[in-house]
């Protein structure tokens, strides 16, 4: 069930530019999976870029780490590079490692593989074995990982100390912010790419959750699980946790302001003592499993402040919440907690309904990138189409709720943008209705009585 694409790391809206490119790039009209397959079959192919407009790719013999090559933003392309060339950690014993580390763990410079001095050896570079330059490699599958002969005549060889992917980036709290490159589960199964729907269909489309960094097939924790996990490429096992080493320094949530007297954003940093729901039901203690059993055990979520029975938001919900002491009411929010002034980034402001807004905001309030207006010609048509540039938030249909845009999330056709009114919230002009006519709605037969079963 694994596809060739699993061996590649994607960089969205990017292209690889070689200073002296010449005519090496021939465009092939293929789907992205076929491009990956073709590149994997060629020994001198290290990456390919995919033209999203023409649906074609170019197979490339270099990566971002090669000489004279740079990564450049280009919304028409996605670049796929073989992980072995760009990943800074090793899988297993690192036999497939093709990175560019060229010093040993004790700082000695590696000897070029093509040279036999100062140390004579039996390894000669070939197209297959990847013994390029003086980079650390593991041609003999040494259990200690990649190594090299050193330029110090007194030290024949040394290991390079490149960390395994499960150790290269450590785990803070429950790893919601883990951005490492581990792509194997704790049982060794390979992860399914987040941007694929097979072998397991799922809701975690990377386009829909840009803030969760659902990159390639790397372990992530987008749903506040106990630790990072992934869907597996094994059709019989949907998902599994990944085994990542824990950080040794103090565990704390990244990018969350701890605050006690109000809640900001979604209230993940709320550490106040509110302990009843909005309607006054006392909260259940987090360390108790009655009346409701649950997974949010305080010892498993050390950074989430699950003390006593206080309202908390350990799972990225809309606001602080708790399990209630009412057996019939499992969960309820604590909206009685005052909301702090919000922290929406400054993207300018709009007057009136925002019909004249001309700013550069181009993401929805959920952070989903807007689609270009030009791509949506089949949707509603707007007379004031002149202002519909690029993918900027606009209000061409006089929507009373402000600038909006079509989104790149297939489940959210359009959404509003996080732009504030310039003069504070405008007054809503309510009016008496004239000539109300209703058609086939709001009718009921009030003579019917409730009958017993």
């Amino acid at each position, binding site marked *: 069930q694994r596809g060739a694409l699993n061996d590649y790391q994607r960089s969205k809206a990017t292209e690889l530019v070689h200073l002296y490119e010449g005519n090496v790039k021939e465009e092939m009209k293929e789907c992205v999976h076929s491009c990956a397959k073709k590149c994997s079959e060629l020994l001198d192919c290290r990456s390919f870029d995919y033209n999203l407009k023409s649906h074609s790719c170019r197979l490339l013999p270099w990566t971002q780490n090669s000489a004279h090559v740079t990564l450049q933003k280009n919304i028409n392309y996605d670049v796929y590079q073989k992980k072995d060339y760009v990943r800074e950690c090793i899988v297993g014993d690192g036999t497939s490692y093709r990175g560019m580390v060229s010093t040993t763990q004790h700082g000695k410079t590696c000897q070029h593989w093509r040279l036999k001095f100062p140390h004579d050896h039996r390894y000669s570079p070939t197209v297959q074995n990847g013994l390029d330059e003086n980079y650390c490699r593991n041609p003999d599958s040494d259990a200690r990982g990649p190594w090299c002969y050193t330029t110090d005549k007194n030290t024949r060889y040394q290991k390079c100390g490149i960390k395994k992917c499960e150790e290269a980036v450590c785990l803070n709290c429950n790893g919601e912010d883990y951005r490492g490159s581990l792509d194997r589960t704790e049982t060794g199964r390979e992860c399914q790419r987040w941007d694929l729907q097979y072998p397991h269909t799922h*809701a975690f489309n990377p386009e*829909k*959750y840009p803030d969760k960094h659902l990159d390639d097939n790397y372990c992530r924790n987008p749903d506040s699980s106990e630790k990072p996990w992934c869907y597996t490429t094994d059709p019989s096992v949907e998902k599994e946790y990944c085994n990542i080493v824990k950080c040794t320094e103090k565990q704390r949530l990244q990018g969350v302001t701890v605050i006690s007297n109000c809640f900001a954003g979604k209230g993940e940093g709320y550490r106040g003592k509110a302990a009843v*729901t*909005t*309607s*006054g*039901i006392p909260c259940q203690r987090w360390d108790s499993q009655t009346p409701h059993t649950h997974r949010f055990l305080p010892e498993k979520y050390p950074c989430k402040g699950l003390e006593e029975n206080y309202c908390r938001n350990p*799972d*990225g*919900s*809309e*606001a602080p919440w708790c399990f*209630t002491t*009412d057996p*019939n*009411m499992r969960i*309820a*929010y604590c*909206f*009685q907690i005052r909301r702090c002034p919000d922290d929406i980034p400054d993207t300018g402001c709009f007057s009136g309904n925002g019909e004249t807004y001309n700013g550069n905001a181009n993401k929805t*309030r*959920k952070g989903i990138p807007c689609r270009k207006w030009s791509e949506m010609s089949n*949707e*509603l048509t707007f007379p004031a189409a002149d202002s519909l540039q690029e993918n900027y938030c606009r209000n061409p*249909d006089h*929507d*009373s*709720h*402000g600038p909006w845009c079509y989104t790149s999330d297939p*489940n*959210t*056709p*359009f*959404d*509003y943008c996080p732009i504030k009114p310039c003069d504070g*919230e405008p*007054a*809503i*002009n*309510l*009016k*008496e*209705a004239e000539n*109300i006519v*209703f058609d*086939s*709605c*709001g*009718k*009921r*037969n*009030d003579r*019917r009585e*409730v009958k017993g*079963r």
Partner: protein
Amino acid sequence: MVGGMPGNSPWTVSLRNRDGNHFCGGSLVKEDWVVSTRQCFSSCDADLSGYSAVVGTRYNKPNPDDPDKQSVPISQIMCGPSDSSLVMLKLERPVTLNSRVALICLPPQRYIVPPDRNCEIAGFGDTRGTGHETVLKVVSYTVISNDECNTYSKNRKLAQDYEICTKAVPVTQGACEGDYGGPLACLTLDCWVLEGIIIPARGCGKANVPAVFTRVSVYVDWITKVMKM
């Protein structure tokens, strides 16, 4: 619903979780669209697979073979404009309208419900021991202007412009957990119109305190835009 009586509200939807348990209310505005409140869901991206909308029954726990009950999976959630607390839920397929299932009308854009208009809320939520736990309950209300509503509190504005308010009554009655997202329906020209959406308040149906709802007429353009797109 604290207080109130068993009643008939064919546009009131019971939202059910994966275990089939009722957790919130909603209002049927089109055969395949339900309006509810955002506070009923963990997020605007909530995974609603296994969740369903149930219409056509007045029982909290209808028999599985109840011929009138229609249960349709929820396929999509869309969050409303920032202040609205509204969500629209797309159903996997349209429900069938009949004597037990009906659409509620949407008000004209920015329409003000005249004070003293008779309205009602309906829901399957917590009764706090006031009886009729097993059936849909209805509580009647009278709408008041926001200006009058805000005189009830010296310290803060009870109802914002995008909210609608009903007269305080001297008895304990009103919405509670499980009723949120349900309709405040008002009778206009022989038709019931969705003028408000039940949102959480402090406590349940407190006596002598006005009830505040999201004012639907402020968001009608959004509701129709979502259905159109």
